[in-house]
């Protein structure tokens, strides 16, 4: 019996050692890049959209014969605690030297100090909180414009249309929504709009019935409704408002461009006005969109395009460092990212002194009855 147990132990040890050897062989010489995404749970659609875009980007890079990197995923479920644990796992066990996503402005804020300490740059295609401009630190970059900028464009649009009194509903448990609220309050009031504090209504993550909130805000007879809610929650808010006879307009940014918003808003989607970075009309964009539809039976949203660009921004940086013969480290990547001038499918990507996107043009959009985005003049 003992002999059999000893043999089993030896075999098991040998198998474990060989597995370990396999792993180190696989990763040695490779550059590992991480992506901390919500791949399960209520917000999984963000992570899965980004992962789909990376899959297409990896295939495209392979077809072009470019040096690739190994992408290692961490599932955050959009929870700060889990994201910090996944960050630790990816940096310490997988030795990632950079991240092409850390979904969630709150998560990015939580990781900023650690990224600076470990000298691991993070690029994001989704984090738009204005707080990241001042608190993102030297290692946080984003290929998507800050809400400080998009809310200015949104407020200017509202003022231009004579919508001088507004109300705002936002999810106080969501860092993006809090950032959006602050940015809108600042820009709309600066533009001469009336948005008093008692017209700003906070709700929480689990709220799906907004009837009382709508009734309260309706009493103020607003001309415009700012929506600081995400996807399905925003859609339910708009649908329930429209069912009470409110015609909006409901103003937002990329939160109103999500498919979940369209599904949940029903007929109310045609009363949504939102601004998005201008989509570049090019063969590359059409090719990416067609490939995305073919592979995933769903239209790509703005996050998918931005995630695709984020992948290539990181790939360019890795390639440039490799070509120069230097080791690919986080610090080298950060220096290289600072100098980025990349013609992506969403436009030219360059970073300013705060590592924010240097330039962004916006388009004003709404939906038609067939859920297609249509420009508004």
């Amino acid at each position, binding site marked *: 019996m003992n002999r059999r147990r000893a043999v089993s132990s030896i075999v098991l040890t040998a198998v474990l050692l060989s597995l370990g050897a396999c792993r180190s062989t696989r990763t040695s010489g490779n550059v590992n890049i991480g992506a901390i995404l919500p791949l399960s749970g*209520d917000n999984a659609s963000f992570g*899965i959209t980004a992962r789909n875009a990376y899959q297409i980007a990896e295939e495209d890079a392979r077809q072009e014969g470019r040096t690739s990197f190994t992408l290692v995923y961490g599932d955050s479920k959009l929870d700060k605690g889990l994201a910090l644990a996944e960050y630790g796992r990816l940096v310490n066990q997988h030795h990632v030297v950079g991240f092409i996503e850390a979904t969630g402005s709150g998560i990015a804020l939580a990781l900023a100090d650690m990224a600076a300490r470990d000298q691991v740059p993070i690029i994001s295609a989704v984090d738009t909180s204005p707080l990241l401009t001042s608190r993102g630190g030297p290692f946080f970059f984003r290929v998507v414009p800050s809400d400080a900028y998009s809310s200015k464009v949104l407020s200017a649009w509202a003022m231009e249309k004579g919508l001088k009194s507004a109300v705002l509903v936002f999810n106080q448990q969501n860092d993006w929504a809090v950032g959006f609220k602050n940015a809108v309050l600042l820009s709309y009031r600066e533009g001469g709009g009336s948005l008093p504090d008692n017209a700003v209504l906070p*709700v929480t993550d689990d709220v*799906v*019935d907004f009837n*009382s909130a709508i009734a309260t805000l309706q009493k103020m007879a607003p001309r415009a409704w700012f929506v600081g809610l995400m996807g399905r929650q925003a859609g339910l808010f708009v649908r329930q408002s429209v069912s009470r006879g409110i015609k909006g307009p409901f103003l937002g940014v990329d939160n109103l461009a999500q*498919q979940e918003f369209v599904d*949940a808003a029903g007929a109310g989607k045609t009363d949504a006005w939102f601004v998005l970075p201008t989509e570049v009309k090019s063969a590359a964009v059409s090719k990416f969109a067609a490939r995305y539809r073919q592979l*995933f039976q769903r239209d790509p949203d703005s996050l998918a395009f931005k995630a695709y660009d984020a992948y290539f921004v990181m790939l360019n940086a890795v390639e440039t460092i490799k070509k120069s013969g230097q080791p690919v480290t986080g610090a080298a990547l950060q220096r290289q990212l600072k100098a980025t001038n990349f013609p992506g499918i969403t436009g030219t990507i360059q970073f300013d002194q705060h590592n924010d996107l240097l330039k962004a043009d916006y388009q004003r959009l709404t939906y038609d009855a067939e859920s297609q985005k249509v420009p508004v003049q």
Partner: protein
Amino acid sequence: MLRGAYYVPIALAFALVARHGRYLPLWLPECGMVAAYAAYFSIERARFPLLLGMAVAVLAGSLSALVAHYALFAGHVARSEPFAALLRGIGVIVLLDNIASLLTGGYALAFSRLAIPSSGRFRMVHALLGSDALALGCVPLLAGGLWAAVNHTRSGLQYRSVSANRQVATQYGLRVQRIDFIVVVMGGLLCAIGGITNGLRYGLTATMMSTTALKAVAVVVAVGYDRLLTVALGMLAIGVLESLCQARIRFSAFEDGVSYAALAIGLVVHYVVWPWWRHWRERRSWGAEKQLAEARL
């Protein structure tokens, strides 16, 4: 009150199964999620006729309750192990949520074919949708029907006997296994109704039942699982309180705390205020009797 109406079927199912099994069946509301997703996939994706799709959904809800009960919880119920059952329940919730999330790529879904029109003759009053009328109509029907069935029928008596003491009920010749089956099917059925009406109004997500389940726990624990009508009224009251909270900008951020506040108040009333009140009344009546006796002497 409308908002509370959407919670009622789930709370009734929860109370029914909790009383029977003597544990908190946290997993049970997930059968509502299973039913709602089954309705979505059969009606919206497979394009089944509406009635067939609904039948499939209700069947899926009840079947999932049966499978979960017999595979994971029946033994704990028989051996009176509430904590082990609670832990397994949490495992089932995580598993089902992840399966639903994987099936849909994490995206929230919404009914389009099944959606009850919100205009024309389906619109009862301003802002009251077809699904709202359905949810409101279900409250007296389900709460009243279940209360009558449990308290005023022979089967109800058997259910109460088994819930009170399984061993004694078995010795008296009651068919405990049959009652187990009926209770779990009823629980699954109620959750299926709750899941589908919720899905009609608020769309579908993998975690659509998590919050409702916790509210059901709060109310059932606070008022007691043997008071079905009070459970239904408690859920309606939670809905009213949440709406009142949301309507006040200062309090809107605390909307979700209402059910837990109700739980805390309910526990204090049940375990502190009520015993104290009874004790005080007994002492008072005892004192009065003593005084009366002394006066007679």
